[in-house]
């Protein structure tokens, strides 16, 4: 049926990436470039009493030293979100108060990165040390150190108790719900810190163009938010700034954050020289992280598996600044609870500051932490009522045509929007996955190895309803090709390609006729950027509308050229054809006619798109593991993910997102861990000591896309970028229980923790003490 959509079209940027063309931020070298390095706080909580930069400034090759003394103090949020922003304005370019080890004290711009590093060491700072607070539960207590006591911050709910925000929603009657239950269980689950570890760290290059306008070339998910936030912080107008996003080496949420750009820009404005600011890998680890969340979950169920009440209370730790603090907290409820059919639900969330690294957006955006709790708990309930885990899953999830009161009650940082599920193939996903994993009820003993199976179901959203907006422009060239200009941001996900496919399908030409140019604030229309799983659904919707508009225009000209009315025309293979006479005009002829001959004009259209719903993609995950009872090591033998993302515009790319999420998720579940010293300093901020999965660690993966048709999405598409990161933690926790009968409610499942849970080692010292936070 489709010609371009649903096909594994080669990525439009594939060749240039593979050939190593200069496509990334760092691939350009500008004359007279300055290099910037931070001086970071060695203290988790302190006030700068004095700062002396004279020695550094005197050094040969040092161009500029910036501190709180010589930079504008404009409270803002570094979270690149819609406007007005839902995150508190609690950051300034260089604060006077340090709030975590690694907070920015000063920076040096110099002729080389080495000189900058040496100069940083020459800056003399005197601190007044304050007592820190690391534990989020302690942070809420009366008398706890107050992290944000500055007068000019705004949007913090209760700074005296380090409380950034809170939410409580009630639907139905919770007490009645628990009253009806045959079993009620309550447990506490803890999901830990993690970093996105994109292969390309944060990097920005700034320069003045030939007319003295500021150009910001940056590895970002949110070019338009970069422009807005930089204009605000720098106190210049938006028209003076152009933001360009080149190719990106991965982001996963960490580049939905604007906090290097304005510093580099300030250096360029002050010195009139190009400037480059790139984080080192160790800095990247404490740039932005996943919010660690403690969930206390109480669930009531009848013997037949019907859920009667869910009470979910979360405490989220946003670290030193409140980037994405409330929105992530809301999401833990709003992207998790609607999955479950249950009439009586309470969700309570609190998000607090601590003197630890700053959290932010990370693939899954709170849902990942929430699903660890709910999907672990479902297995605990299943056991209590004597039901197979998969049978309980079959029973309790929301179905096509149904709604959940949570959609209305909870949104992102505010109330939500009611919606009915208009597409779901979750039942099929569960059946197919269950078949593929070949779940053995009582696997045979294999010496010291124990085998176990686990499953989890999950959903996410597709964009933020009534908030996220994307726009597209399409213009036609005289060879019948089209420029597609989109604000949408390809992070390596391949979105440029799928947006081209959507345009090509609509315009009835091969994808190669679409020339994509994206994410340049001077040349492309607005788009909120790549986050909240929105690009295919929202930006894709804009492309579809725009292409339709252009097609109308093409047909209009075709009418005139063929002297035939619309009803008698059809469009195929880049031609407008008369159904009556079969005579036709090609797109080339139409474009040339418009540009050079009759009623001369450019065939061009721009359209914008928002959605009042956020149709969830669904997935069912199944895992088979082997645990070595001697060492506590877990080997993932096989991982099956069945996913309903609506129509997969490009199945290869969609599968890539699923596989990427699974590996990301398994690595988070098993090996990735932030280890802090007693000062709250991350001790393992390097790839040597923070272990992400390597190719050798990747298990057999089976990804099955089970298409549904989402009526509100372009060609039936929903999102696929995030949903599958929600599965591995609970699925593996459930498999551990299946294998060795112990329930681990705290991630990651290191061999140390597995053996401890099995009662093989008494207690764990130091290493696991700190990451309680």
């Amino acid at each position, binding site marked *: 049926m489709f010609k371009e959509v649903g096909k594994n079209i080669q990525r439009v940027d594939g060749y240039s990436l593979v050939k190593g063309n200069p496509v990334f931020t760092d691939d350009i070298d500008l004359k007279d470039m300055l290099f910037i390095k931070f001086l970071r706080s060695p203290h988790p909580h302190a006030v700068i009493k004095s700062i002396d930069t004279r020695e550094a400034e005197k050094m040969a090759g040092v161009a500029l030293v910036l501190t709180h003394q010589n930079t504008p103090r404009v409270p803002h949020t570094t979270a690149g979100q819609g406007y007005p922003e839902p995150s508190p304005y609690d950051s300034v370019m260089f604060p006077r108060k340090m709030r975590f080890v690694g907070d920015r004290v000063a920076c040096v711009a110099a002729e080389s990165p080495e000189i900058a590093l040496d100069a940083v060491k020459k800056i003399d700072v005197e601190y007044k040390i304050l007592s820190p607070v690391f534990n989020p539960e302690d942070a809420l207590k009366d008398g706890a150190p107050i992290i944000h006591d500055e007068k000019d911050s705004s949007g913090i709910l209760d700074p005296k108790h380090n409380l950034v925000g809170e939410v409580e929603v009630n639907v139905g009657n919770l007490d009645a719900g628990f009253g009806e239950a045959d079993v009620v269980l309550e447990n506490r689950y803890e999901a830990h810190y993690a970093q996105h570890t994109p292969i390309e760290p944060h990097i920005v290059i700034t320069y003045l163009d030939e007319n003295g306008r500021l150009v910001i070339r940056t590895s970002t998910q949110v070019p338009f938010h970069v422009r807005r936030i930089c204009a605000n912080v720098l106190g210049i107008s938006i028209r003076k700034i152009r933001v360009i996003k080149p190719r990106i080496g991965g982001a996963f949420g960490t580049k939905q954050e604007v906090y290097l750009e304005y510093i580099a820009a300030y250096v360029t404005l002050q010195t009139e020289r190009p400037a480059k600011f790139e984080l080192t890998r160790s800095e990247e680890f404490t740039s932005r992280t996943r919010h660690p969340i403690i969930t206390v979950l109480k669930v009531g169920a009848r013997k037949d598996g019907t859920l009667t009440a869910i009470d979910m209370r979360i405490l989220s730790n946003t670290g030193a600044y409140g980037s994405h603090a409330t929105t992530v907290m809301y999401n833990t409820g709003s992207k998790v609870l609607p999955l479950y059919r249950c009439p009586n639900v309470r969700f309570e969330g609190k998000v607090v500051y601590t003197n630890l690294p700053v959290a932010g957006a990370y693939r899954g955006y709170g849902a990942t932490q929430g699903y660890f709790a709910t999907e672990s708990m479902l297995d605990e309930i299943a056991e209590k009522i004597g039901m197979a885990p998969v049978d309980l899953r079959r029973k309790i999830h929301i179905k096509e045509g149904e709604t959940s009161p949570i959609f209305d009650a909870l949104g992102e940082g505010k109330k939500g929007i009611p919606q009915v599920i208009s597409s779901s193939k979750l039942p099929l996903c569960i059946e197919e996955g269950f078949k593929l994993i070949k779940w053995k009820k009582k696997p045979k003993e294999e010496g010291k190895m124990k085998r176990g199976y686990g499953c989890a179901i999950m959903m996410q959203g597709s964009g933020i309803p009534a908030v996220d907006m994307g726009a597209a422009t399409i213009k036609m060239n005289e060879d019948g090709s089209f420029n597609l200009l989109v604000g949408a941001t390809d992070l390596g996900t391949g979105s440029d390609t799928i947006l081209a496919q959507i345009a090509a399908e609509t315009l009835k030409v091969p994808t190669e006729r679409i020339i994509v140019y994206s994410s340049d604030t001077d040349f492309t229309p607005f788009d909120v950027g790549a986050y909240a799983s929105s690009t295919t659904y929202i930006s894709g919707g804009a492309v579809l509308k725009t292409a339709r508009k252009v097609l109308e225009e093409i047909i209009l000209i075709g009418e005139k050229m063929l002297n035939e009315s619309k009803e008698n025309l059809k469009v195929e293979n880049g031609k407008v054809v008369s159904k009556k006479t079969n005579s036709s005009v090609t797109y080339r002829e139409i474009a040339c006619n418009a540009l050079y001959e009759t009623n001369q004009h450019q065939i061009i259209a721009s359209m914008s798109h928002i959605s009042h719903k956020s149709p969830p993609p669904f997935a069912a995950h199944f895992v088979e593991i082997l645990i070595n009872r001697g*060492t506590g090591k877990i080997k993932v033998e096989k991982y099956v993910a069945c996913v309903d993302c609506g129509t997969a515009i490009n199945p290869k790319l969609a599968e890539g997102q699923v596989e990427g999420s699974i590996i990301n998720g398994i690595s988070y579940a098993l090996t990735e861990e932030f280890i802090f010293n007693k000062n709250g300093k991350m001790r393992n901020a390097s790839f040597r000591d923070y272990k992400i999965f390597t190719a050798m660690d990747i298990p057999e993966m089976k990804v099955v896309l089970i298409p549904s048709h989402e009526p509100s999405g372009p060609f039936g598409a929903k999102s696929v970028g995030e949903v599958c990161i929600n599965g591995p933690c609970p699925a593996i926790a459930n498999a551990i229980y299946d294998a060795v009968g112990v329930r681990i409610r705290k991630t990651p499942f290191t061999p140390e923790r597995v053996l401890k849970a099995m009662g093989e080692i008494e207690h764990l010292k130091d290493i696991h003490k700190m990451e309680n936070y």
Partner: protein
Amino acid sequence: MKVYNPKNIKEALTYLGGKDTHILAGGTDLIVRIKDRDIYPKSIVNIKMLHLDYIKINGDFIKVGALTSVETLYRSEIINTYAPVLSDAVGKMGSPQIRNLGTIGGNIANASPAADTVPPLFVLNAGITLKSRRGKRAVAIGEFFTGPGENIIERDEFITEVVFKKMESDEVWFFKKLGQRKALTIAKISLAFGGRLSGRKLNEVSIALGAVASTVIYAKRTADFLNSKRLTRDVIDVVSKIIQKEIEPITDIRSTVEYRRKMAGALLKQGLLDIMYSVIARQS
């Protein structure tokens, strides 16, 4: 920073002796330390051109040049046949890139308590040959290390060769390493075992552990307990407790005291059980 590229050992020796002079072999430890600004060398002596890349049989002994890469060791028939415990260990090191660059001399000289070639070399009771302008000396590997990153090499010396006896057919061995993931991982704990077996009786047992102390260490008491014992389930259970008492590991970012202690027992137990079962299988 000055870099010397000597063509022979004699020339190399003339550059050694300075305080901030460092030897460069594969560079997989050294360059990382320089980049981390952990050391600031004034001069570097690159020993790559010294023709110290060889594996030779000399009567009952194997001689390995200090510049032999980890990958060469791994692919060597000689090592595989006569020092399988070392062969096994080098197969678990780093990644292909690291194995191609990293050398045995560098792994030893770097003196990490987690170095993977070292526990097998302890079990093989290897001798380390050092050369200086003053002459040549040999040191048993068990006496080579003095602390993490510390060894007995004098400033004017460097390692030229590693020598050990061929393993014989009545010798049993194993090497176990626990890391945080499958590749590119530093041992949380490693254990090399060697001994002679007649029937089910063990003799000349040697056990070396990595990453449980400031250097690789011998577990002497544990080894002594096993000498002249028949391998039975009971003996294995007991000895896996003894080794836990013998060692004093620490907690660091890779693991904990409790886990390491427990694993010393678990790894020894798994290895010994495997030996016992293969003996039983052979006998029946």
